[in-house]
């Protein structure tokens, strides 16, 4: 084949690939918006589901997703940041411990999400919760069953690798000269991390957090057995209550409902809400990072 022809072919293939991706995104957005927008209104956002979930709103699912996401972030971010600090600052590259942690993080990142759900069921509910009940409640069932705390913790495990990797990357972008400047002024290693390395990694920490949050907000499998409920007539009042979630709500309406066709408008509208939620979270992340970068300059 002529070299020029090859060029045209390559350009054609790459162009088509891009078009396919754009087509998929546009289709998803178009179908969701067309199907969901007419049903999206204030009542839908602020009401409980009604009539076997064929009518009414998704208020408890929004609240449940938000609360679950917050607890997840509170659990995953500090833990992830601390691990990332250890990997980037303290562990020697050649140490067996650091290699083990890295291997574990990589493995954790590729474990299917349903496995996290099963792990959460076995570990948090079956082991931690059961033992808490034994010790604190004299065996009465409170923590040894699915609830929002265990679901959030399970989700935190799922998103932990994302946090660790993005924070470690951010920490490593702090130039060695900055650390040396601090150490040469008589700062200890911890003072250097606290006052030079971490402030410089804020954008990475935020990115990690938001990526984790937006991934966690939409995941269903990890919370299937660990806390998400089919329908609740009330919002969760304590960490030991179950909760409704947007992703799970879509799943049950499309698979478990007695009248799937009747729930279709609600499904579309719920999907649209979930998409808007994750998109706006990402937008917040982008804006925050932009501001921090601008301030750093």
């Amino acid at each position: 084949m002529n070299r020029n022809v090859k060029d045209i072919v390559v350009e054609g293939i790459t162009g088509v690939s891009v078009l396919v991706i754009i087509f998929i995104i546009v289709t998803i957005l178009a179908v969701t918006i067309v199907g969901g927008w007419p049903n999206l209104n204030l009542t839908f956002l602020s009401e409980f589901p009604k009539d076997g979930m064929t009518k009414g709103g998704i208020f408890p699912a929004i609240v449940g997703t938000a609360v679950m996401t917050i607890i997840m972030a509170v659990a995953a971010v500090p833990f992830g940041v601390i691990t990332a600090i250890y990997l980037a600052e303290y562990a020697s590259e050649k140490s067996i411990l650091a290699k083990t942690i890295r291997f574990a993080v990589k493995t954790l990142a590729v474990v299917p999400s349903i496995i996290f759900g099963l792990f959460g069921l076995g570990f948090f509910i079956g082991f931690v919760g059961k033992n808490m009940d034994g010790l604190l409640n004299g065996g009465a069932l409170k923590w040894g069953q699915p609830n929002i705390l265990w679901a959030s913790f399970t989700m935190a495990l799922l998103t932990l690798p994302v946090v660790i990797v993005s924070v470690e990357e951010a920490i490593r972008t702090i130039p060695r000269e900055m650390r040396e400047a601090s150490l040469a002024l008589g700062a200890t290693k911890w003072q250097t991390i606290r006052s030079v390395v971490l402030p410089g990694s804020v954008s990475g920490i935020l990115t990690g957090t938001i990526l984790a949050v937006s991934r966690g907000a939409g995941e269903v499998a990890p919370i299937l057995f660990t806390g998400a409920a089919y329908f609740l007539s009330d919002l969760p009042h304590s960490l030991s209550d179950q909760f409704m979630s947007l992703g799970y709500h879509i799943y049950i309406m499309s698979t478990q409902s007695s009248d799937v066709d009747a729930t279709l408008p609600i499904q579309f509208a719920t999907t649209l809400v979930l998409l808007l939620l994750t998109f706006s979270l990402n937008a917040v992340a982008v804006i925050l990072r932009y501001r921090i970068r601008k301030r750093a300059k």
Partner: protein
Amino acid sequence: MNDIKVKVKELSLRYGTNPALKKISMDIPEKMVTAFIGPSGCGKSTFLRTLNRMNDLIDNVTIEGEVLIDNINIYDKNIDVVNLRKKVGMIFQKSNPFAKSVYDNIAFGPRINGISQKSILDEIVEKSLKQAAIWDEVKDRLFNSALSLSGGQQQRICIARTLAVNPEIILMDEPASALDPISTAKIEELIHELKKEYTIVIVTHNMQQAARTSDLTALFYMGDLVEMNKTEIIFSNPARKQTEDYISGRFG
């Protein structure tokens, strides 16, 4: 000649099995400027970094011998490296202010040492910036980012930041190599002022700079100390042929 501030005895340093410094011995006098010259890779920067133990940060470095500062071996097991580095400050080749305001850069050292009272910090910041001859240029923008200043100003901010910790010795690793001639002249002028109060050790690639700024000059080559003497002797009448060849530009 002033009293000896730093006495180095048979100091050797290896990266892995690779020798970088071979049994260096030298005396560095107090409140004078000592310059290290030599071709790239000769060990002068490595040697400078042994004086405040910055090489500790690098894996796989082995150091033998002694460095006595005020007659105390800084490689002794009981030495607190953090205190050592407060006493022996360092200015780097590439100016490295933190991504903070001018004020916070200067106040960094005092703050990590536990000073938090604003009036004391204000005083230290002003005094250090004046000492580093940059007060007039930045006094109206103390709370702007230090990164918004020019390269030469940034380097003087770094010097002020070091002075704020109140060191006795200041190590400078090619402090003007990335600066234009006017900024370089300002740094050299500053070195001249600072030696009244501080012991200064400067690594430089620029032989005119060594000749202009220093009282003593040491030539390094391949990890050896070739010759050390008063600067005017090194540049006019060196004892070794190798020194003469280097300063006249015949090698290196």
